[in-house]
């Protein structure tokens, strides 16, 4: 096997994890794919150290997380004014019930539960989704999240609480899920 073939096999093992990490943080498929590409290009530069290394998964996840957060901070600092002007209304946490349309509800009944949860997670505002994903999915502590995001511990806790509340509201509107969430 050539080096490239080895690396391709390496990518096949970890591409879902890397892409999933990026997607849940940036909530945009195209941007997540760009970030994933950057992660693997960095991995290729260090492939000698990562090949057959049990810590490769942790390294990839950390790099994917950091690149995603860098992307979000760059995006927000440059364009936040204009992105808020053109913001998709679906990103608004106070937007009205999205699933009251019976046609939508009928379609949603057929969707898998996880797809609905992913969709609701993606619709959360950046400020709530990112710390929520870092805490519940990536398993970081409050202190680690505060350090990564460069904010206070109190803000992290507040944002996570708001994210949980908003997510619960969105999930309760989904037929089939409302009885499971009190």
């Amino acid at each position: 096997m050539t080096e490239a073939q080895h690396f391709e096999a390496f990518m096949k093992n970890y591409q879902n994890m890397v892409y999933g990490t990026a997607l849940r943080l940036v909530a945009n498929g195209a941007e997540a794919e760009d970030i994933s590409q950057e992660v693997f290009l960095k991995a290729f530069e260090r492939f000698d150290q990562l090949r057959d290394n049990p810590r490769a998964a942790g390294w990839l996840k950390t790099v994917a997380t950091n690149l995603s957060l860098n992307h979000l901070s760059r995006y927000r600092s440059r364009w936040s004014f204009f992105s808020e002007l053109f913001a998709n209304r679906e990103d608004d946490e106070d937007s009205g019930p999205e699933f009251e349309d019976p046609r939508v509800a009928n379609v949603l009944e057929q969707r898998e539960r996880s797809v609905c949860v992913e969709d609701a997670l993606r619709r959360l505002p950046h400020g709530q989704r990112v710390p929520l994903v870092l805490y519940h999915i990536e398993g970081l502590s409050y202190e680690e999240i505060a350090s990564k995001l460069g904010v206070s511990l109190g803000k992290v806790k507040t944002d996570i609480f708001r994210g949980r509340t908003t997510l619960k509201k969105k999930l309760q509107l989904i037929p089939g899920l409302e009885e499971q969430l009190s």
Partner: protein
Amino acid sequence: MNHRDDKQLETEIDRELKQLPEITAPGTLIGRVMRRIENPAFAPAPVSHGMRWRWTRRGALIASGASAALVLALALLLMAAEVGAIQAFAGRLQQSLSLFAVILNTAVVLTEAMIFAVKNLGVGVIAGGLMLLGVAYVTCIGAGMMMVRVAVVRR
């Protein structure tokens, strides 16, 4: 909401999010990366050994380089003095200074023109012009932002 409710909410959301399955990466990802890697133009950024040096070594290198350049310059100056090249240098310097004087005069004329404009046009017109410039700038940034979003969505 009391502490028990907070804990219950945390547990519910944690359960929902931890149950999420692994997301499948798009089929194009591996191809994109492999094309970059296999492109002869792509080479992982070589880490220059010089860039790994500590600041002390870099500082020492810069200082020694600057010293050598200074010594060389002094040597050339001494050589030039012996053959009388300093007079020629002074002549060239005088020409440069006269060019500088022209530039300075031009700047003075422009400044006086601006002051004349402000006095006669009024602050209101000037402020309106600056506002128009600001609006144009913001419009360009906004248009650029729209183009980027459209391009991302189309991709």
